[in-house]
């Protein structure tokens, strides 16, 4: 385990020096503050405290931002080592490829955790500043934090798999952006179009919920909205969220990191330096 820890330490140091940590934190902080400022409309009618409203806004933001940041951090992980020529030497050391991947993932997850803590913390601070009742939203904020980490872990794993398949950082970056576009943006648009075309038929009732669960980003959104009625009310999507139980969404965002890492390890094992 000291091997994986050593790798994680070095990887985190590299992320610090490459400004990745700073970039990710700044990005999260900026968006969180903008959301906090934009969401200052009166919320009394919804019966929700300010922090819960903020969490609902952060959830919508995180769905886009977390996968993007995770993919951007991970594409360099394997492809970068191949490109720099540092991989052959590393693989002659008595450390398994699984450990190598684990070490990198630990460092990247730590980076994400810091960024989320700072970003969400700032947004929470803004909510507390204007609403004394904001403490009621703390459970939702905590849930958002750790589920964001799960979502991030899933996309880190997918990013490693892409990086191992692509071998070159340029190609891996392209694949990562393409995947983000498809999984996060086009997927939902496609589902929306299908639901509209279906007009409340079998697709909407039988297939649609499964397709939502299958996508970790959608599952993440569902989980956070379904878990907190106040949040759901604030976000105005209570109906859609209520159709799928929260535990199913949670299962999806828990299984995704495991599946993604298994996939990444599989792809990484095929890399011959």
């Amino acid at each position, binding site marked *: 385990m000291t*091997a994986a820890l*050593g790798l994680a*330490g070095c990887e985190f*140091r*590299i992320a610090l020096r490459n400004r990745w940590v700073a970039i990710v934190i700044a990005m999260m902080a900026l968006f969180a503050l903008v959301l906090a400022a934009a969401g200052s409309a009166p919320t009394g009618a919804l019966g929700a405290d300010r922090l819960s409203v903020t969490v609902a806004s952060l959830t919508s933001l995180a769905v886009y931002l977390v996968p993007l940041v995770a993919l951007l951090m991970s594409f360099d992980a394997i492809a970068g080592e191949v490109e*720099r020529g*540092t991989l052959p030497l590393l693989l002659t*050391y*008595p450390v398994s490829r699984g450990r190598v991947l684990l070490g990198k993932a630990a460092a990247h997850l730590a980076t994400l955790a810091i960024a989320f803590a700072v970003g969400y913390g700032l947004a929470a601070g803004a909510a507390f500043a204007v609403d004394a009742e904001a403490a009621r939203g703390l459970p939702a904020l905590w849930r958002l934090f750790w589920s964001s980490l799960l979502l991030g872990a899933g996309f880190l794993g997918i990013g490693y798999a892409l990086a191992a398949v692509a071998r070159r950082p340029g190609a891996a970056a392209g694949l990562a952006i393409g995947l983000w576009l498809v999984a996060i943006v086009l997927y939902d648009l496609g589902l929306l179009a299908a639901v509209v075309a279906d007009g409340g038929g079998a697709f909407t009732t039988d297939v649609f919920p499964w397709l939502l669960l299958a996508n970790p980003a959608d599952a993440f959104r569902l989980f956070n909205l379904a878990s907190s009625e106040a949040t759901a009310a604030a976000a105005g999507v209570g109906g859609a969220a209520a159709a799928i139980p929260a535990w199913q969404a949670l299962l999806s965002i828990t299984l995704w990191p495991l599946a993604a890492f298994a996939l990444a390890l599989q792809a990484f094992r095929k890399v011959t330096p």
Partner: protein
Amino acid sequence: MTHLILSRLTKTFGRETALDDVSLSVAPGERVALLGHNGAGKSTLMKIVLGLIPADAGRVEVLGAPPGSPQARAQVAYLPENAAFHPALTGEEQMGLYLRLRGQSPRDARPLLDRVGLGSAATRRIGTYSKGMRQRVGLAQALIGRPRLLILDEPTSGLDPVSRREFYAILDDLAADGAAILLSSHALTEVEARTDRIAILSRGVVVADDTLAGLRRNAALPTRMQIAARPGAADEVAEALQAGGRNGVTVDLVCAADEKLDRLGRIAALGPLVEDVEILPPSLKDIYDHYSRREAK
């Protein structure tokens, strides 16, 4: 126990045969040089020994274990050709990582960097290092944890002559301690006196595997003699020795190794006509060319 055994190793990449029926062994304390042109199969052979790529046929035994197995990897050190490291890490941090990967304390990084002469640059980022300095980091990491087999791919490329001598001095210490060393090079002049045995690879085939003296003997290349004649006597000397080339004062003579003494006797018999004799044994380059060309025919 022999530290490294390769037996009838074959590896092809598509239609290209990288290694063809290669057998080679390295004993403890032995320094074996693997010579060959670019693309002769040296790096492929090394990567198979390290378990980075599989062989198509043949047997490899690394310290009694299969290549790439945890047991083998724990005792094998590797210095890649053009050793590369992450430019954002300092020499000390990079060494610290490698130490931890071998289960050692990262505090040993400094002494190791000192040993390869990088102590003063230890806290600088590797991105600012020269090629020679990176090569030294590569050597330093290969020294971690008293490895029993060292695989060094063109270790002295990028090193100046002084560094090269220091490098071989470190190898001598390792070999004296019982480590087996396999190093590759594309020039015989770089490895001559510092290795116990030389294996020459040509297009994936081992065309020679012997000591330098053995290679020299078996090649039986002609010896050249340069005879400095007294001024004006060059033609006379050339005629007496039935030699071909001459340029006024010196006469060139080429003879087989076993005729050397006979020829010298005849030169000595010319007495005052000759001022000096220079004997030029076949150069290392000649010997290497002899073996690497022989198979290419």
